[in-house]
Structures are given as C-alpha cells and as structure tokens.
C-alpha cells in the first residue's frame, strides 16, 4: 500500500517535471526544426514537421548576410575585451586579496558598489566621448565599454578565489627574489586559472548576448556583432520566418555549446555570491 502511494507520487512528480521540460524545450526544437524549412512549407503548417530538410536558409545567411564576418566580429571584439578586462582586473584583485594598505576595504566597497550602477546612466556621455575620439562605429568603443564595465564583477569573483591562494607560496616567491610582475604572471595567474576560465565564460557569453552596447556604438552592417545583426539586419526580413529562425538558431549555438562543454564552471560561478 505504502509503496503504491509512493509510486503514484513519483508519477505525479515526473508528470510535472516532464510538462515543464516540454514547455521549456519545445521553442528550441521549434527553432531548430523550422530553420531548415522553406517558407512555403512553413506557412502551410507552422507547427508540423518539414516535408524535406533544407539547408537553404543557412546558405542564405552565409551568402547574403556574411554570417562568418558577423561571428568573426563578435569573437574578435570579445577576445580583445577579455584581454583588456583581465589586465585591469587581475592586479587589482590580487591587491585586494593579498596586500595590506590603508584604505583597502573602502576602495573595495567602491568597486562592489559600482556593480549596482545601471549601464544606461553613463552611456550618453560615453557616446559623446567616443564620437569625439572617432570611435563610434569602430569596434574600439564596444571593446572599451565591455572591458571596463566587466571589471567590478570580475574583481568581486577573483578576490573571492585569490583569498584561497596560500600565503606560503607567495612568501616562497618573495624569498626567491622574483619581481611583482613575475609573481603575478608565474604564481597568481596559474593558480587563478579556474577563476579566469569562469570569468571567460561569463564575460564572453554576456557579451555575445549583449544587444545594448553594440546597438548604440556600431552602425555599419559590416562591423556589427551577431546578436545586434540579428536584431537589426535580419529583422528587416521578418516575414521570412524560417530564415529568421535559422539566424536565431545560429546565434544560439555558441552559448549552448559553451554551456554543455563547461557546465561545472558555470554552476560554480553562479553560486558564488548567491549562497552563504
């Protein structure tokens, strides 16, 4: 009797979980399936399966929208921004985690408080600044904005992790007489690799998905990032649903692939700060 009751509870639990899974995953299946249909086939039966699988939409994206260039733009912008943000964040995090100097906790509070500032409060002066520097419609503006606005949260995560570096290792380096820059390059950076990988995932997926910054700073079609291109160039063709879906699907592949490959880092990074 008891086991029969347990069984029915288990079935209800499964029914709920499966129902949510369907609502959660169907749109992704819909996106994937319909991206390889012709629009005629699609409009005859939007919810059904294609009569034949076509790659025409992906070919159209390749030839008409220069999708490789859009991918390349995004990748290049994100890599450069990541290099800049790491150069800015690592020494600062090390100082906060391991060095002692007057005003340290006050300065740290300023960095943490900066995380709460909405990006939109400083975008207008920055737009005018970039236009004076000739960087509007130039990847430089997006790279600078991405890199600098990521600094506070990167410092927050790196400080938490660098506190765990044993002081003995740093002392040993000091006794061997290595310079400060060598300490950072040979001891701190290698020991922070898990943290830096986590940051790489969070920063680059965040930037890959960012609409606001590239929408404002980049205007020419050949400089746009993938996400903003989907929202602007592809949107002009918004009657051709399958073509649009193919674009959305391609834009979604990199973050999904990163997630599947590096799940454990993502979970760790998300949990820092949320659970005491």
């Amino acid at each position, binding site marked *: 009797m008891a086991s029969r009751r347990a069984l029915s509870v288990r079935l209800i*639990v499964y029914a709920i979980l499966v129902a949510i899974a369907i609502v959660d995953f169907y749109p992704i299946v819909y996106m994937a399936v319909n991206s390889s249909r012709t629009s005629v086939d699609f409009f005859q039966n939007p919810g059904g399966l294609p009569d034949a699988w076509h790659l025409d939409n992906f070919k159209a994206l390749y030839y008409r929208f220069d999708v490789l260039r859009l991918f390349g733009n995004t990748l290049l912008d994100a890599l450069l921004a990541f290099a800049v943000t790491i150069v800015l964040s690592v020494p600062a995090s090390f100082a906060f985690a391991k060095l002692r*100097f007057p005003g340290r906790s006050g300065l740290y509070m300023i960095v943490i408080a900066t995380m709460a500032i*909405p990006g939109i409060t*400083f975008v207008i002066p920055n737009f005018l600044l970039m236009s004076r520097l000739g960087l509007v419609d130039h990847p430089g503006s997006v790279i600078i904005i991405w890199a600098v606005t990521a600094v506070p949260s990167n410092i927050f995560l790196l400080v938490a992790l660098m506190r765990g570096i044993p002081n003995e290792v740093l002392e040993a380096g000091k006794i061997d007489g290595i310079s400060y820059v060598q300490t950072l390059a040979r001891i701190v950076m290698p020991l922070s690799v898990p943290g830096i990988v986590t940051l790489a995932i969070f920063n680059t997926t965040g930037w890959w998905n960012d609409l606001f910054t590239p929408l404002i700073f980049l205007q020419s079609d050949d400089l746009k990032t993938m996400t903003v291109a989907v929202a602007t160039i592809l949107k002009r063709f918004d009657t051709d649903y399958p073509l649009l879906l193919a674009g959305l699907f391609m834009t979604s592949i990199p973050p999904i692939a990163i997630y599947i490959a590096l799940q454990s880092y993502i979970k760790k990074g998300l*949990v820092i700060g949320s659970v005491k």
Partner: protein
Amino acid sequence: MHFRTKESMTGYLSLLPAFAALAAIVFYPMVNTFYHSFTKWNGAESHGIGLRNYTLIFTNGELWTLLRNNAIFLLSIPGILLLSLVVSVLLFEEVRGWRFFRSLYYIPTILSSVVVGMLMKMMFAQSGVVNQLLHALGLTDGKTEWLTQVPTAFMVLIFCFYWQTLGQGALIFLSGLSSISHEIFESADLDGAGWWQRLFHITIPSLVPTIVYFTVTNAIYCFIGLFSLVYAVTQGGPGRETTPIDYMIYIKAFQTPDQLGYASALSIVLFAIALLASWMQIRLSNRFQD
C-alpha cells in the same frame, strides 16, 4: 624603502589601472549625466534649466506609465519564484534523471534576450504556432493578436521572462538546498516529521537567504535589464504601453533629437531606484544571515 610603505605602494599601483579605467568610463560620465540632468542639452551645447527636466518627468504623466510597466514585471516575480522553488524541491528529491532535467531547464537561460524575444514573437504571431495550438484545442478561434493589445503583450513579455529565468532559479535554489545539512533532515525523520512538515519547517526557512537573493536580483533586472527583450518583442508598443524606464531612456537619448538633458534626468531617476534596490538587498541579506 620601508617594507610596509613598499607594500602599500604596490597595492595602490595595482589598483591604479582598474580605477583609472572606471573613472574614465563609469564615474566621470555618471557625474556628467548628473550635471546635464539639470540642462537642456543637444549633445553639443547645453544650458542650465534647473529642475525643469525633473518637474517635467514627475508631472507629464509619462513616468507613471513607465513605472506601472516596470511594476507589472515586478509583480510577476512571485510567480517565477514559486515555480523555481517547486521545480527545485521536486528535483531535490533526486528523482531519476534530475541532472538531465536541471540541464534542460537551464538552456533557455543561456540564450540572448534578443533570441528569446524574437523567437517568442514568432511563436505568438497571429499565424503562429501558439494560436494554432489553442485553436486545435478548441480554446480560442486561433486569431488572437497577442502583441498589438495590452494585457496580452505583457503576457508574452512575462512568459519570455519566466522562460529565461526558471533555469537560473532552479540552479540557485538547488545549490541552496544542497547546503542544508543532512543531519537536520535525519533528525527530523527520527522525530517523525512528514514530508510537508519538513518542507515548511526546515526546507523553506533554510532557503530564505536564497529567496531574498533571487527576488532582489530579479527586481533589479525588472528595472535595468528589460531593454533587449522589449526591443525584440514589442518595441515598447502598442503606444508606450509596454515601455519600461530603461527603454524610454534609449528612445529619448538616441531616437529623439535634443532630448539628452531629459534622458539624463530619467537616467538619474533610474539610478536612484537601482540604488534603493541594492540598499534593500544589503539590508535584507544582513538581516537573514544569522
């Protein structure tokens, strides 16, 4: 050089690049926005007009529509909170395949708001698959125009918000649940506590810090994170009916000529709201820490 002074110097020099960059790209422009919120500004020239931008914001009625729109998203938070909580409590029972469900639920969270928005916009289009399904089930005539009228446009936006947030919520609550010690559950079992008693007397109370964190981060998102979603789905329409504050700032600053002063003042209002929300987060998390 004295050892202490040397360490201090190293510390300040390490911070210098980060602070210089933040000063140039965040702090100075913020002060600049604050200053220009008291001016009429076209980007090249500005002249002071005192509090006129602010009085305009608070009297022209627009702010209340914008705030109402943000508030509708805020009011939808308890729903997604409850849903995430239910899902994670069910998954925590370690039904077979819970890891699979967890990963599946997380995938929408990784997608860009633009992708989510445009995908849902298609699915909720008049000829879209949602109408087709509802018609097939005999629930509607299958011709609902979801995005051109108000309560339904909000329903689509909130559905997008829920769809994006469930995975993150489940993940955060699961890690909160796994940090509850097993001994507490075991001693409750020994005392003969049933499943529901355990839920209300142990599980939920231990999750309070996580619930606070989830609620406040999403509340902040409802004020400063909706831009991409609204841009992709409704563009703030019909009229201004689904325009939140951040989208309005974008319209005033980048789509309307000579409104940079007004947009700056609106940015400062938004900043004040974000500050209030963060302050509440700190207050609440201190309070629930013990």
